[in-house]
C-alpha cells in the first residue's frame, strides 16, 4: 500500500436559508487563484437562487429583528469564536484568492475576526448613539429609536475577499437586518466557507444567505425585487452601480453607493451600521397636567 492519498476536493455550495444547496440552475464556474491556477468550482447562481434567498431572508427577518440586541451581540461574538477555530483554513483561502503571503493573509483574517467582535459590541449600543429623547413643546415624551430596514442585498467587495466581505456583512446583520450576499465574483471561496461558520454559530438560518456567481447577473433581479428593502453596492463598478441604483428606485430601496475604500483595514466607524436603519419616533403623553401647568 502506498503512502499517497487521493486528494479530497471540497464541493463549495451556496448558503441559503440555513442550508447548503447547489445552484438551482445546476451551473458552476471555475475559480482560480491569483496566478490562474484552478482552485475549485463554485456555484454559478441564477436569478431564481436570488429569489429563493430573498424568501429565506424575509422569513428570517421577524425573529432576527425581534431578538434582543444583547442576544444578537452574543451570536455575532460566537461567529468570531468559530472563525478563530478555523483560522488556518481562512488564511489559506485568502492567500490563494488574493495572492498574498501566509503572513499577510493572516493579518487579513485576524482583522476580519476582530471586526466581528467589534460589531458584536455595537449591537446593544447603536440605539443609544443614534436614538434618544427629543425635546418637544408639549406634555410628551418624544423618543426616537433605530429599527432595521429589512432585507438588504449586499454586493461584497470584489478585491478584498474576506476582510471586505466581513466589513459589509457584519454591520448589516448587527442591527437586525437580514442579508442576501453576493460573494466576490473572482474569489468567492472565503465567502462560501463563511456560510459553514455561520451555520454553526447559532445564527438563525436565512439571516445571512451567500450566493456566488456573476455579480451583474444576480444583482439585477435583487435590485428590482419588490421585497428587498435596501442594497449595498460595495462590489459594483461605476456602470453597474448606476444601473442598479435606477432599478432600485422603483420601490424606493435604500441604496448605499460604493465608497472609496483602500484596503478595509481602517476602523470603519458607524456609517455602515446606520446606513440600513430606519428611525421610529414615538410620542407618549406624560400624564395629566398638574394645576401648576407642569406635568413633571
Amino acid at each position, binding site marked *: 500500500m502506498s503512502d499517497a492519498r487521493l486528494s479530497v476536493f471540497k464541493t463549495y455550495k451556496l448558503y441559503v436559508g440555513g442550508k447548503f444547496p447547489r445552484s438551482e440552475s445546476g451551473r458552476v464556474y471555475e475559480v482560480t487563484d491569483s496566478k490562474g491556477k484552478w482552485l475549485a468550482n463554485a456555484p454559478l447562481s441564477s436569478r431564481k437562487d436570488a429569489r429563493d434567498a430573498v424568501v429565506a431572508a424575509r422569513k428570517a427577518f421577524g425573529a432576527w429583528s425581534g431578538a434582543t440586541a444583547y442576544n444578537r451581540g452574543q451570536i455575532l461574538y460566537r461567529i468570531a469564536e468559530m472563525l478563530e477555530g478555523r483560522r488556518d483554513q481562512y488564511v489559506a483561502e485568502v492567500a490563494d484568492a488574493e495572492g498574498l503571503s501566509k503572513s499577510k493573509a493572516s493579518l487579513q483574517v485576524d482583522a476580519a475576526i476582530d471586526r466581528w467582535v467589534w460589531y458584536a459590541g455595537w449591537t446593544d449600543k447603536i440605539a443609544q448613539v443614534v436614538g434618544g429623547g427629543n425635546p418637544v413643546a408639549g406634555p410628551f415624551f418624544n423618543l426616537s429609536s433605530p429599527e432595521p430596514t429589512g432585507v438588504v442585498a449586499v454586493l461584497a467587495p470584489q478585491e478584498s475577499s474576506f476582510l471586505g466581505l466581513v466589513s459589509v456583512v457584519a454591520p448589516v446583520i448587527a442591527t437586525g437586518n437580514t442579508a442576501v450576499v453576493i460573494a466576490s465574483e473572482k474569489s468567492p471561496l472565503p465567502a462560501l466557507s463563511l456560510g459553514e461558520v455561520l451555520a454553526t454559530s447559532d445564527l438563525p438560518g436565512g439571516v445571512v444567505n451567500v450566493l456566488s456567481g456573476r455579480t451583474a447577473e444576480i444583482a439585477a*433581479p435583487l435590485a428590482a425585487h419588490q421585497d428587498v428593502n435596501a442594497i449595498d453596492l460595495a462590489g459594483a463598478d461605476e456602470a453597474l452601480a448606476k444601473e442598479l441604483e435606477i432599478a432600485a428606485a422603483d420601490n424606493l430601496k435604500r441604496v448605499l453607493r460604493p465608497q472609496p475604500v483602500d484596503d478595509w483595514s481602517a476602523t470603519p466607524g458607524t456609517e455602515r451600521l446606520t446606513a440600513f436603519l430606519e428611525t421610529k419616533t414615538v410620542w407618549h403623553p406624560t400624564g395629566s397636567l398638574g394645576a401648576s401647568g407642569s406635568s413633571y
Partner: protein
Amino acid sequence: MPTTAPAPGLADVTASDSTLRRFLHGLPGVDAVGLEARAASLGTRSIKTTAKAYALDLAISMVDLTTLEGADTPGKVRALGAKAVHPDPTDRTAPTTAAVCVYPDMVAVAKEAVAGSGVKVASVATAFPAGRASLAVKLADVREAVAAGADEVDMVIDRGAFLAGNYMKVYDEIVAVKEACGTSARLKVIFETGELSTYDNIRRASWLGMLAGADFIKTSTGKVAVNATPANTLLMLEAVRDFRAQTGVQVGVKPAGGIRTAKDAIKFLVLVNETAGEDWLDNHWFRFGASSLLNDLLMQRQKLATGRYSGPDYVTVD
C-alpha cells in the same frame, strides 16, 4: 390509456347495501406506487412564458377563496368578497375568482359583497368539518345555506360510516343533501381523503359520491394534517374521467387545503389536462379550495407583467 372503469350497468348497483358494496369493492385496486410516480412525473413539466400566463389566469379564475375560521367576522367576509371580485386592485385585467367559500351564517354577507360580479358564493354545510351530527341537523344546515342564497354547497361525508363499511348510509345522506340543495345549488362532496387511509378507499368514495349525484368531488376540508396531494387528486380525476365515459355525466373536482404556491397550482392544472382532459380546464369543472394561494398567484402574475419579483407588500394581507 387503460381504464379503471367498472363494467357497464350502473343503474342497479345502488339497489341495496350488498349490491353497492359489491360494486365498490369490485373497483380495481389502486397501484399506489404507480399513482404517486405518475403524479410526480407530471409535476416536473416546465410551464413558461405565455403558457404560464394562461395557467396563472386560469388558476386565479378557479380559486374558491376560502375563510372557515371560528373568528370570521362580517367585515372579514366582506374583505374576502372584495378580493374575490378584484383580486389585484392594481391590475384590472386579473380575472375574478370562481367563488368565495364561507360558513352558512356568513352566506348572506358574502352574497351581498360579491353581488353583480359573477363570483359565486359557496357554503360548507352538514356539520362541517367533522360531519358528526344527525341527518336532520345536517339537512337543516344545508337548507339554511341555500335559503341564504348559496350557489354551491360543500358537504362532508360521514367518514365514520364509510370506514365502518356502511356505504348505503353515506349514499343516502348524499342523496338527501342533494335533494335539499334543490336545483339552484351545486353540490360538492368532501371526502376528507386524509382520513380515508388508503387510495382504494378514495377511489370507492369517489364513485360513491358520483353515483349519489355529486356535482363536484372534493378532497378535503383543510382542517386535517393531510389535505390535497397531487396523487389523491390524480386518482379522483381518473374517477371523474371514467364516470363520464360510462354515464355521460361530467363531475367536477376540487382539491382543497395545502396548495399554497403558484407552482403547485400549475402542477395540478397539468394533472387535470393530462388525466381528465381539456374539458375540465374551466372553473365550472375544476376548483382550488385555498386562501393563501391567491396571493402567490397574483405575485407571479405581477412578476410576469413587470419582469421584477414582487413581494407580499404588494398584495393584500388576509
